[in-house]
């Protein structure tokens, strides 16, 4: 089985987000970049499927050279090879086009990625990739098993879940509990250094969207504390002051 896992390099989940250059750029000073947590689930499941049924796992990132530590970590976790499309991931359509260009003639059985990136939270890339390649897309996938040519999938829906069967090839957006996050071991880290990481140039296209500036949310006012032995007062305040109930 040939699996492509698309990963994002994003600020660690504990990052306090700030901007520079008149609020037009993320302030990267002191920010640790990690593999997108959802992408990490996708990668972990891809490695498990490979270990069970054989095949290869290719990691793909659309990003600058500063994303390479994240890519190396994916190789250390068990991916066999990596491709980096050398471009800033500015817009979901653009990123999807790059992924589709890599995948077009490579006949992957599965193209996996996180249900969404945790920077733009668009959750759109997998669907656009699938549309561009003419493949089905399913997200968010919580369970993925492959039996021959058929994927057996549990997908989360509002207030529940559904069991799905579909023929490969497929594009899937993944989330927990599809697999446990994997931590690279020493041997993995050593071998990752020698695994191939190919850098390719992007396919050019017009820009469909552009961020003109960023903004931080206004801080909340000070918290109003209510003594526990007067808890009922809270309900009164929510009713008469906040007017939400």
């Amino acid at each position, binding site marked *: 089985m040939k699996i492509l896992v698309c990963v994002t390099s994003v600020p660690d989940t504990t990052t*306090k987000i700030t901007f520079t250059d008149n609020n037009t750029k993320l302030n990267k000073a002191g920010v640790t970049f990690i593999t997108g947590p959802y992408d990490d689930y996708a990668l972990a499941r891809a490695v498990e499927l490979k270990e069970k049924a054989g095949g290869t796992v290719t990691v793909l990132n659309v990003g600058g050279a500063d994303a390479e530590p994240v890519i190396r970590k994916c190789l250390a976790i068990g991916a066999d090879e990596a491709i980096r499309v050398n471009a800033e991931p500015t817009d*979901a359509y653009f990123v999807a086009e790059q992924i589709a260009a890599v995948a077009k003639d490579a006949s992957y059985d599965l193209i996996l990625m996180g249900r969404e990136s945790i920077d733009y*939270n668009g959750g759109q890339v997998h669907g656009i990739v699938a549309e561009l390649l003419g493949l089905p897309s399913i997200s968010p996938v919580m369970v993925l098993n492959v039996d021959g040519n058929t994927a057996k999938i549990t997908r989360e829906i*509002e207030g*529940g879940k559904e069991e799905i069967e579909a023929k490969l090839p497929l594009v899937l957006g993944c989330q927990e509990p599809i697999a446990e996050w994997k931590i690279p071991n020493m041997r993995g880290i050593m071998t990752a250094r020698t695994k191939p990481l190919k850098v390719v140039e992007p396919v050019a296209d017009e820009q469909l969207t552009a961020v003109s*500036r960023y903004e931080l949310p206004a801080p909340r006012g000070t918290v109003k504390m209510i003594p526990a032995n007067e808890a009922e007062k809270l309900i009164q305040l929510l009713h008469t002051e906040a007017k*939400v109930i």
Partner: protein
Amino acid sequence: MSVLIFVELDEGKLKKSSQEAIFYGAKVAEMTGTTATAIAVGQADESELATAGRFGATKVLHARDTRLNEPNGMAYATVVAAAAQQEGSTVVVLAKSSLADAMTARLAGKLKAGLAANVIELPDLGNGFVVKSSIYTGKAFAYNELKAGIKILAIKKNTITPEETDTTAPVDSFSPALNDSDFVISVKSTEKATGDILLPEADLVVSAGRGMKGPENWGLVEDLAQALHAATACSKPVSDLDWRPHHEHVGQTGIKISPNLYIACGISGAIQHLAGVNSSKVIVVINKDADAPFFKSADYGIVGDVFEVLPRLTAAVKAL
């Protein structure tokens, strides 16, 4: 030329988030000098669809081929793309939902559209077409200029408060060509809680964390939720431990919600949890630890034991 709005029904009724989307779409139509058309796909009662008019739609398209009875993101996207073409729509609006999420991307691919997800305000047409959206899981906002000819806006809950009139809209049937390739996925079974308020749709949410000690104590959370007609939610460890189903998990790696009221019981307020709930209008925190970080992001707080405070709140709600 009209603004096209995809609408959904839940248990036969137009979803609240869809009403919001119609009102939003009608406002955009007003700003751009055109009209708003709603489109519904699959089984739906025509008199219910006609209520789209109350929120500003001047027409409703209804695609009801039997193959569309079951929600199917791919096929629905094909239908909506065909409707956008027929109507010459340059703006398509959807309210975020699990079905809409499955459709927006495919639509963007089909129409080569400029897409903004998690939109939280009406567009600014002063200089191009700029929309404000929530990014970094609610930790920041971005102003996105949509440069493509066709624009798709996926709006978050509570982006706009719909005003209602008593106008209804005519419902026309719409039967575009369907693609067989959209029907290759087979859904074997569906498990869905019925009668419950859907978490992403809920105006009021009562949420609880590890401070509840175990699943056997959730009755206290459910009692308050029931009294308030609120949905229930939980922190990640709670769903990891299987105390609650995964679809209740909110936060950075769970569902992102923006209700009018979020009551957090026995949740510490880790940054990953806050990320999914900090766009709630009013946040209440109940925690026995006065130093719990969540108090810094709250509007109202009670330092106290959830086992004592929750029953008192439930009784107070019932007495309102």
